[in-house]
């Protein structure tokens, strides 16, 4: 059975193809259109999935959409009914999109994909739940999904057992932890649905202050059963684009920060207080879920599950022993979840490809002749030189030496990663042993804010030597660690060994690496380890600020040329700039 899942029209458009129980291809639309968080109909991602498997659209058994558009439309109409006439501007801006495209998925699939088969629609949070539960490989597990908003739900709790998912209860819009976090993101001068991770990073520079926590407690009311509600007088997101209200500004007695304004202690402490509150609310909710289900496994999904600092505290602060978060818990992951749900219901999910064995490298890859064509063009333009290494071993040896010599390496190999993180196929790699390396990459390569930390990639069996995760009764070897979804504190003894990846609060968002996940990347890290005795290097996404991660060799070359990356390794070619 061939099932295509798609998500679009809200945050991140994506497509995912499952053939006979195996996920064969998946990609986000932004990688093809080069528009970050592109939410348009994912025609490029769909074409990639079909072409990668040699399929015509009408050979598909089902196309599954990741939400119920009419229920979502109902919620939007109710928002306007509640806020008439204040909501006129937003109505006139977005309503035509609903009428022209968002409610006409069937027509779009016919006209753009030329598909005339069965089209299914599943609930937004059910797609999130399916994405995490079916990928986890757990026989049974509690499930928590939290995001901005789906149709009506913003948070759901359920149980997965014997390949069936039962969602039990939900919290409805406008009470939303995701939108609460996004509101603060915009108040702190960053963009919503994009830069929430910057607030998470900024939080480490501040301290949760009692005076802000008291104010936050006025905004959110946490009930005894773990549910919560927001005091809507502080929010305007249900009727206009600015998410916070005048009351919100009065409460914090501080004007909203503009994008390029200086970050003050107030902003850092407020971010820290918000992060503290989010952790408190979610961990309280998880403890209630455990009391109810008595299940030792927890699967999480939804945009809030991208909060790696929160994720890193879950096992230590709840009775759960295993935590699973899929590589893309956000809306793009909904495409995968929708397809997985239908596969489990009408077909089957091949257990050989889920859980520990799930591989996140599902995007496009390029043949050597396609790569050489691009390289030759740049060589003719006298911009680069390149060398072919016939032996992979020699190439890895050379690259490990270059990293040791503190060069910045663009690393382009094989299939592009699924999800928002670069996992070693579209990555920038560098040594973590020098403090200044963080500022060098931030300013000369990525052009991004200097406060933002870099993630360490570490050989999986060295986690306990470098991170303070001493509770051996819990499973810290979760696949979520392989997808950079958890932050743990480093041991103090390693601060001086790898200062470039130790964040200001002593933590790091790790990517644990094992051989079966990515053999080439693992071999490179092992080479570096043998040369230096340090099993850790910097891994950051191969892109610059404001752009999606690169997808093609051409994009790799453009990024390489316009930044201060020292060498580019693309397949078996080592590329350097002509100076």
């Amino acid at each position, binding site marked *: 059975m061939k099932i295509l899942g798609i998500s679009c029209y809200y945050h991140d458009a994506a497509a995912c193809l499952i053939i006979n129980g195996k996920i064969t291809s998946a990609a986000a639309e932004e990688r093809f259109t080069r528009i970050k968080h592109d939410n348009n109909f994912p025609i490029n991602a769909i074409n990639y999935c079909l072409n990668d498997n040699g399929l015509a659209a009408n050979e598909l058994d089902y196309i*599954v959409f990741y939400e*119920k*558009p*009419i*229920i979502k439309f*109902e919620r939007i*109409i*109710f*928002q*306007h*009914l*509640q806020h*008439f*006439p204040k909501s*006129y501007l937003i*109505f*006139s801006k977005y*309503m*035509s999109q609903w009428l022209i495209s968002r*409610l006409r*998925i069937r027509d779009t699939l016919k006209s753009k994909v030329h598909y005339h088969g*069965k*089209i*299914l*629609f*599943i*609930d937004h949070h*059910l797609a999130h739940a399916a994405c995490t539960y079916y990928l986890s490989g757990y026989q049974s597990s509690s499930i928590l999904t939290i995001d901005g908003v789906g149709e009506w*739900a913003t948070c*759901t*709790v*359920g149980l997965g057992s014997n390949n069936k998912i039962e*969602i*039990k*209860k*939900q*919290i*409805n*819009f*406008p*009470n939303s932890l995701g939108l609460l976090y996004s509101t603060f993101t915009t108040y702190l001068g960053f963009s919503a649905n994009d830069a929430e991770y910057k607030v998470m990073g900024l939080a480490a520079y501040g301290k949760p202050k009692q005076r802000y926590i008291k104010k936050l407690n006025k905004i959110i009311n946490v*009930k*005894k*059963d773990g*549910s*919560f*509600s927001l005091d*809507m007088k502080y929010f305007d997101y*249900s009727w206009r684009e600015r998410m916070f209200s005048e009351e919100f500004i009065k409460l914090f007695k501080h004007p909203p920060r503009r994008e390029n304004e200086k970050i003050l202690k107030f902003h850092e402490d407020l971010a820290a207080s918000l992060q503290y509150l989010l952790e408190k609310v979610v961990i309280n909710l998880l403890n209630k879920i455990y009391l109810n289900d008595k299940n030792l496994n927890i699967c999480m999904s939804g945009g809030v599950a991208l909060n790696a600092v929160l994720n890193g505290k879950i096992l230590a602060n709840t009775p759960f022993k295993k935590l699973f978060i899929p590589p893309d818990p956000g809306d793009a992951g909904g495409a995968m979840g929708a397809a997985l749900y*239908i596969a489990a219901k009408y077909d089957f999910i091949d257990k050989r490809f889920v859980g520990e064995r799930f591989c996140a490298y599902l995007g496009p890859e390029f043949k050597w002749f396609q790569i050489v064509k691009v390289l030759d063009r740049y060589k003719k333009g006298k911009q680069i030189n390149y060398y072919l290494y016939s032996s992979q071993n020699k190439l890895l040896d050379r690259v490990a030496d270059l990293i040791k010599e503190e060069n910045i390496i663009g690393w382009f190999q094989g299939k592009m990663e699924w999800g928002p993180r670069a996992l070693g196929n579209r990555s920038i790699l560098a040594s973590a042993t020098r403090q200044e390396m963080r500022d060098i990459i931030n300013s000369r390569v990525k052009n991004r804010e200097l406060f933002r930390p870099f993630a360490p990639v570490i050989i999986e069996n060295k986690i306990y030597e470098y991170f303070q995760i001493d509770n051996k009764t819990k499973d810290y070897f979760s696949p979520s660690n392989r997808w950079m979804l958890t932050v743990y504190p480093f041991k103090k003894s390693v601060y001086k060994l790898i200062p470039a990846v130790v964040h200001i609060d002593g933590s790091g968002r790790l990517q644990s690496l094992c051989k079966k996940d990515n053999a080439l990347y693992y071999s490179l890290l092992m080479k570096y380890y043998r040369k230096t005795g340090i099993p850790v290097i910097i891994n950051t996404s191969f892109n610059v600020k404001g752009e999606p991660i690169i997808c093609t060799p051409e994009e790799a070359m453009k990024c390489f040329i316009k930044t201060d990356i020292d060498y580019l390794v693309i397949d078996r070619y080592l590329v350097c700039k002509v100076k």
Partner: protein
Amino acid sequence: MYIQRVFGLFKKINAFYIKITSFIILSFIYFIGIGLTSLVGKLFKQDFLIINKSNNKSNWCKYYLSENMEKMY
């Protein structure tokens, strides 16, 4: 070249016409459809988004699974 220019002009007029028409239609829908319903609802103290929930102990709602996946609702 000339035909292209004329064609471009027609495209611009068309886009302008679509904008004006959709503005008028959407404004009509908003003020008559949404507006009247909202006013009547508010007259009967209808809380459309259930912001002021009476049950203060819990904010959980029951989840209803829509069985028919072929429907958009």
